[in-house]
């Protein structure tokens, strides 16, 4: 059924499948529109800043930049709606329908099914965060052994999800001020303005600090992770971030003899530790 291999071997290197073509296209649309929205939105938020008029002028100033902002915003909202449909389609096709065919579809089993969707946070994520802290605070050499989707990726997924709900809704309210005042009250526009601009700042900072650190600037991936373009992750990064899933896939594909040890078990680390003990 799957139109891809979980492991692709290219020039003797193993590559691990991560994202489908559709997901990659969705991500690129998301990335381009968000950057456009930030560039045309932040000059308004920080309209007194010295750089604001220059950046705004780059997008045609007050006569044009708002149009760019609305086009990008509309595109992003359409993508969001598409993504919800895409999500529903896949859950129904891959999970709900088989359940129905087996005659096991009840409210409880459906609820359980939704809770065990790949990107829903679970206890393993909480354990991984604690393990990561232990590792980062020099208490252990072992990195948490991540599953297929780690808590970082879930965070990266749900943060824009929440952001799009808040920023998208408030953006629509601000765009259609007459209609929203008729539906609600004029005060709603005050709150929408706060929510839109504050949540946008949070989303922007989150992306450019956290997401970009993880996929661009971190020493492991610098200068740029390529999974968002070609859909595959290298063996090195699989071991570092998704060790549990790595072992699972390697075994499944018949490479169980080639499984490498997790990072942190380097022989030199043991030597160093031995020396430390000796001293």
């Amino acid at each position: 059924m799957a139109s891809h291999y979980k492991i692709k071997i290219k020039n003797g290197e193993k590559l691990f499948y991560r994202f489908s073509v559709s997901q990659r296209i969705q991500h690129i649309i998301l990335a381009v529109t968000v950057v456009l929205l930030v560039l045309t939105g932040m000059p308004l938020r920080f309209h007194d800043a010295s750089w604001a008029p220059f950046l705004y002028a780059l997008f045609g100033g007050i006569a044009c930049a708002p149009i760019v902002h609305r086009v990008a915003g509309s595109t992003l909202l359409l993508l969001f709606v598409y993504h919800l449909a895409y999500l529903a389609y896949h859950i129904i096709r891959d999970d709900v329908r088989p359940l129905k065919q087996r005659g096991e579809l009840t409210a409880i089993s459906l609820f359980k099914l939704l809770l065990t969707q790949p990107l829903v946070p679970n206890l393993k994520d909480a354990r991984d965060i604690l393990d990561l802290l232990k590792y980062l605070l020099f208490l252990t050499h072992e990195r948490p052994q991540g599953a297929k989707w780690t808590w970082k990726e879930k965070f990266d997924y749900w943060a824009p999800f929440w952001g799009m709900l808040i920023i998208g809704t408030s953006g629509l309210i601000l765009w259609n001020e007459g209609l929203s005042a008729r539906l609600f009250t004029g005060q709603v526009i005050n709150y929408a303005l706060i929510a839109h601009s504050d949540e946008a700042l949070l989303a922007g900072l989150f992306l450019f600090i956290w997401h970009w650190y993880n996929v661009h600037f971190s020493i492991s991936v610098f200068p740029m992770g390529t999974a968002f373009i070609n859909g595959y992750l290298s063996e090195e990064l699989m071991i570092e971030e998704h060790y549990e899933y790595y072992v699972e896939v390697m075994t499944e594909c018949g490479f169980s003899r080639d499984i490498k040890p997790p990072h942190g078990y380097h022989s030199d680390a043991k030597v160093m530790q031995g020396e430390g003990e000796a001293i």
Partner: protein
Amino acid sequence: MNRLTEETWLGSPQPASRSKGNLNPLEGSDGSRAAGMGGSRAVVLLLFLMALFPIGSRAADVGNCLMCHKYPGLSLVAEDGALRLCYVNEENFNSSVHSKVTCQGCHTDVDKIPHDPAKKVDCLTQCHIDEPTTAKKFSHEHAERFLSQSVHSKYDPNGNLKEYAEDYPDCKGCHDNPLWRPMAFGTSQHAGMSESALGRCRVCHQSDEFIFRYYSHVTTRLHKIRNPKNIAEACGRCHNDPALVARHNLRTQAGISYNDSYHGKAASFLDERIPDCLDCHVRKGESVHQMLSRKNPRSITHADNKAQTCSSTDCHPNASAKLASYDVHAGFTLDKSPGQFYFTVFFIFLTGCTLLPLMAIIFLDLLRRLFPNLILRKRS
């Protein structure tokens, strides 16, 4: 120097207003700038201004005042310690609404050269121009009369001097010598003069000076004479002053809260399609000097009239009456708008609680990679 401290200005703003920022966008190119410029840049500026106003309009300098005042460096230190430029940029002055008025028309007490310290200009002086519709001597008494009926009057309705009367503006509190801001209509509407329109004028009229003045007089008033950003700054000179706002028990630092609204944000990018202070606070068709308190039932910002003001044809024509409950001058203070204050605080916390832990993890991650083999606890 003391002899000169009462020196006043020709065609230049009050020194006090200069220190607080220019009112007029074109004003920046007058004396204070030109004085600091090298010769070649001044020539470029002159050429630029000549290009802007291609038709020479020369007010006759009958008093020969420019003999001294044409020098860009002419200045003095006033009693309050401020440097005052006494330079008059002839090009700028000739492009201003007062260009037909002689120096002595306003500086009435200057009658010889060199002159004694001059008194401050009184804008209510009857000047030597006839108002063409009445053929009477012109003065600004009308504006003063409107002002005295407005919320900005120094006197209350019973004719008693208000508390803190000195805070209320006189003419020069809001105005300097405005430059013409003529407008051209062609395929689009923009600032400048339409050569084709001037050509039509020249069919009958011979004096280019007359044509320039008449054209400018009319078209300057067909659009905003100052852009909204300038208006907000002018009003803000008093209305952003926290002490004054507290003294008069005003609801908001109006210029600042305006700047934070979408109207103000657009104004800061020099949009002129959006409302400035005057658009919402003065009834269309009335002199802007008739500004009223929002508590006055005749005011268009009064609760009963607000909806109509917002839904005017040029603004939000499809808006319902509920749009007027939008808080244009919302300030993020606990006592004035608690709901919005807490809403903002929520987002500040959300931002902090999301980003700070993540940034800490990034920092620790960098540190961990710097010492990959260090360990604080022995493995059992």
